[in-house]
């Protein structure tokens, strides 16, 4: 793609005028002044449409009976480049593995989404959500219950046949 350069021609020194230049500048600003189209977004009332592949706050998918889908395979803490996931697995009477402790430190997380990509049972997801302000720092370590409570939409994984998600 070539870059187009707009050449600004300076007026002839004999013909230019500060007052005229100032008045034409004021005409320009006046057009913007009365133009009702503004770029400001009234944020809390007007929300941004997040991209389908936006990677934000995590959530843990749950079964119909309320158990987490996680099978404590240990792939996500292994793949996590920021080492922000703490997982302690356990086993119940039927031999099903489940997470005893599952914590994600949202401050350490770099939101790469590799936990979601690597999960074999589609349990952990990053989501289309970013409003997670808190009053204390320790509130940013999300435990299993908190991850299961999240109800925002999950992130769409990248599809090589549709690289721009169109």
């Amino acid at each position: 793609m070539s870059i187009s350069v707009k050449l600004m021609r300076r007026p002839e020194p004999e013909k230019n005028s500060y007052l005229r230049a100032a008045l034409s500048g004021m005409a320009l600003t006046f057009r913007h002044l009365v133009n009702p189209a503004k770029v400001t977004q009234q944020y809390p009332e007007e929300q941004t449409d997040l991209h389908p592949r936006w990677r934000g706050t995590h959530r843990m998918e749950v079964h119909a009976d309320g158990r987490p889908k996680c099978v404590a395979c240990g792939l996500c803490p292994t793949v996590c480049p920021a080492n922000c996931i703490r997982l302690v697995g356990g086993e119940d009477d039927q031999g099903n593995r489940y997470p005893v402790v599952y914590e994600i430190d949202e401050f350490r997380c770099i939101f790469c989404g590799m936990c979601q990509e690597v999960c074999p049972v589609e349990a952990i997801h990053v989501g289309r959500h970013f409003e997670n302000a808190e009053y204390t720092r320790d509130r940013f370590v999300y435990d299993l219950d908190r991850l299961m409570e999240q109800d925002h939409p999950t992130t769409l994984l990248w599809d090589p046949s549709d690289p721009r998600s169109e």
Partner: protein
Amino acid sequence: MDALQPVSGTALYIAIVVKVLAVFGGVLLVVAYTTLAERRVSAWIQDRTGPNRVGPFGLLQPIADGLKNILKEETLPAKSAKLFFLLGPMLAVFPAFITFAVIPFAAPMPTRWGVVDMIVADVPVGILYILAITSLGVYGLVLGGWSSNNKYALLGGMRASAQMVSYEVALGLSVVAVLVLAGNVTLTEVVAQQQQLHFWFAFPLSLAFIVFMASAFAETNRLPFDMPEAESELVAGYHTEYSGMKYAMFPMAEYANMTTSAALMATLFFGGWDLPGSWDNAFWYHGQLISGFAADGSVMLAHPALWKTLLTFAGFALKTVFFLVVYIWVRWTLPRFRYDQVMALGWKVLLPTALGYVMLIAAATLVLDQLGVRWGFTYGFALTVLSGLATAAFLVFVDRGHTIFGAAATGGQRDIVRRGAPTPSHVGD
């Protein structure tokens, strides 16, 4: 008719107190809402929305700002000159708020106790009082800048003093043209003469208006002349070290000065509270409130009414607000001049222009008086044509071909003007 006597006795004192409180409160209110207007208009010009959270349409924003400034910590630099540091904001804000006293803001109001002039103090020195008091305002800036013990603040203060002194000359001389025409320095008389001339002085004195407007921008330290503040060069200029309410007094002074000079532009050049037509004309002449003179020289009595007062006040407010908006509009359009450009424009362009124009107007007035032209439409029309020619000459000979260029465009030449003739090369010398 005893109803048309000016108020006297106890009613006079009550009227004075009411007017003082109303004008002071009004100016404070205008100052507060000009800060909001500045933020809103600048936002609109930049395709933003501006503050709209506090109250409906952000209308309570000035109150929130005021509370914030009162509650903020007052800092006192360790090595400042404490007395002058405290004195600076007071000296800046005090003259700014008392200048409005001599500006008439509506037609005289008839009451049961007599006619009340809609002006706080109709002092005989009028405009001279404004010039004298506004020059005091610069002491606040210089003292605040110097006592901060901060190099940027000091530079800002020095620039303020140099700029105010330079432009006061051009400002005063452009006002002299008005005074020559009005024949008096009281602002009520200036308004009355504009009513009698059937011309607002902006037309017969168009060049004086241009010079006055440019000088007033410089006097109030507004862009493109905000050298004392110059936030891109001097951090925040003279008020770098101030915080809280002491800081807020400097912007308050600036906006109060803006309001006064906007009102002054309206009064000197756009008829003050005068509205088109002769129905609202009223001024005191030998103890009688008259609206003008008949063809045979006899007086025509004025008929003041409350609705006339209110309507003329609305007209005055509209003119003042218009010039306030122009102030804001210009600020968010034009870039700041360089310091040497400001000085050169003041001394080399505006001062000679104003001086020559005063002589031209004085000569023209003398000629018209000698020819026996009556003060009225013909008089004003002749001066309008003459001033139109002078303004055209100013635009052709002074403005055209002399655009203020950047240092790069003039090839390192440290002169604000680039003449139409080929630029002399200093490089080879």
